[in-house]
């Protein structure tokens, strides 16, 4: 067989989303790759310019659909900076609660997709099963499984219902047991190690040069986590470790994500305890109604009330499950943001695809791209 280009996508079981990986192969060897994005470009940045600050939250949930809370949090932080607001402390803890449960849910989704990529069939179902437990928790206080619209500029929409913390503890106990099972299924399997060791290696300096962040970067041994480096919300008051591994391959990324889930469980236990002890308001006081009202119906006079804030810009970053997401919100004093710019971690991680794919086999593409954890929604936005 001579050299040829094959299109893996937009409809391909490997992609887990809507993108196209063009691969130049010789036999089964990869000579070159060219990711082709944009099949899910929905113009979120443009639509945001046409929306009220709180209406953008709707788009954020759909921007990265496996980590809706993280993106809400990201946007909210920037918008609060741009508008000059601060949330109450309980809201900050609730945001951490959302973020960390979302991290677990997202990583479980990744786990389900990743093990399917290397041909393990059953753990897909196990991952989805356990993710549903986390989504049930989300549903109990936001009413939605994936698109929450829960965080508000100036706080969060509502408090968690009574009895939530007990339920959360039960789920956390269940999950910590399951993580052991997952490891047995994957790390305990010789075939898994044969497939994933020394695969898709991306060393730390290449990661930095190509803007790779998140679990991929930490798998290369760089201990970088915004939750530690630039703590936001309540992370400076919580104890946890940054998960790192040093072999920079697919196994390392697996280990990092698994450890991150364990650390998330650890954080969540603290958060749940704190929430039990410290009741309080969850939304900042003296917010204009169109900005802060928990259930402002679209179209009423309070919603349309124009309140001009001082001009300002907001820039913030959060450690999303996939890596480091940034948002830049420019407020020109109007009720809509003048410009919203998002930085998606997966965008950068995929842009480095040539670095970690070339030289491997076609059969290695699914595990490697699986270990990158592609969420096309946030890449294309």
């Amino acid at each position: 067989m001579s050299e040829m280009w094959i299109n893996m996508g937009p409809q391909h079981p490997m992609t887990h989303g809507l993108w196209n990986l063009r691969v130049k192969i010789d036999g089964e060897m990869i000579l070159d790759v060219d990711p082709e994005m944009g099949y899910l470009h929905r113009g979120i940045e443009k639509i945001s310019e046409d929306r009220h600050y709180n209406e953008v939250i709707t788009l954020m949930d759909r921007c990265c659909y496996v980590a809706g809370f993280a993106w809400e949090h990201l946007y909210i932080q920037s918008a609060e900076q741009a508008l000059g607001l601060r949330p109450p402390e309980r809201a900050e803890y609730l945001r951490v609660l959302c973020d960390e449960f979302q991290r677990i849910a997202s990583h479980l989704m990744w786990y389900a997709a990743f093990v399917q990529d290397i041909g393990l069939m059953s753990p897909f179902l196990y991952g989805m099963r356990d993710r549903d437990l986390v989504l049930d928790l989300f549903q109990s206080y936001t009413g939605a499984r994936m698109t929450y619209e829960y965080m508000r500029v100036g706080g969060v929409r509502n408090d968690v219902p009574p009895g939530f913390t007990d339920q959360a503890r039960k789920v956390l106990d269940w999950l910590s047991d399951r993580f052991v099972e997952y490891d047995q299924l994957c790390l305990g399997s010789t075939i898994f190690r044969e497939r994933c060791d020394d695969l898709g290696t991306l060393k730390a300096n290449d990661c930095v040069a190509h803007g790779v962040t998140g679990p991929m970067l930490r798998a290369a041994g760089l201990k970088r986590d915004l939750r530690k480096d630039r703590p936001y919300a309540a992370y400076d008051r919580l104890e946890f470790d940054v998960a790192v591994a040093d072999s920079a391959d697919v196994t390392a990324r697996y280990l990092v994500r698994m450890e991150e889930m364990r650390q998330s469980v650890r954080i969540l236990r603290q958060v749940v305890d704190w929430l039990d002890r410290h009741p309080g308001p969850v939304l900042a006081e003296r917010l204009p109604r169109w900005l802060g009202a928990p259930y402002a119906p679209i179209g009423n006079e309070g919603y349309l009330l124009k309140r001009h804030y001082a001009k300002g810009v907001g820039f913030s970053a959060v450690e999303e499950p996939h890596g480091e997401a940034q948002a830049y919100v420019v407020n020109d004093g109007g009720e809509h943001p003048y410009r919203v710019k998002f930085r998606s971690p997966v965008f950068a991680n995929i842009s480095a695809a040539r670095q970690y794919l070339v030289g491997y086999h076609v059969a290695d593409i699914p595990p490697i791209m699986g270990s990158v954890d592609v969420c096309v929604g946030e890449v294309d936005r």
Partner: protein
Amino acid sequence: MTTPTASVAPAKPPGPEGLRPEGPLPTVTQAAVPFIEIETLRAREFLPAAREALTSLIAEQGQTKVIRPVFNWAGRNSLFPLHWGLACCAIEFAAAFGGRWDAERFGVVPRSSPRQCDLMIVNGTVTWKVAHKLITLYEQMPEPKWVIAMGNCATGGGPFRTAYSVVPGVDKLVPVDVYIAGCPPRPEAMLDGILKLEQLIRERKE
């Protein structure tokens, strides 16, 4: 629920028009097999009449009573959706195949090749960039085929309706049989959509 089987009037032999005399015919019996109905015919009329009766019996009765119900049953109970994910709804699509909902109970098994599918579930926002690829995939699916627009984006563009790159509803591109509301629809809603489609197939006459 009226199935095609039930809605067809029984035991009405499709004899050729004009051959029957006025009044009730001296039929032997209205037996379970309506084929054996003896009419008073002259010899030269018998052969074409018999041929026509036989043809129409096989064509209509056999079709409606045996072939169509059987294939209809088969078709609606084994819908293979195309395995692809567009956006948010794809995650709920995947969740519907998880243990809690288990769409395989209804014989729904996703296949990766459009050649082996009969159902395209458009689970997410369709952009103009992917539009012609979606049409290609639809055309690659062999007949009979169905399309489910899952979620608000596929139904009408959803929150991104006004965006420059988004197709406001996948029905602008391919014919849609079932629309599922929700953003994203829960897995139950997706299963309900599939069951609605099964109902649609059951009531289908062709």
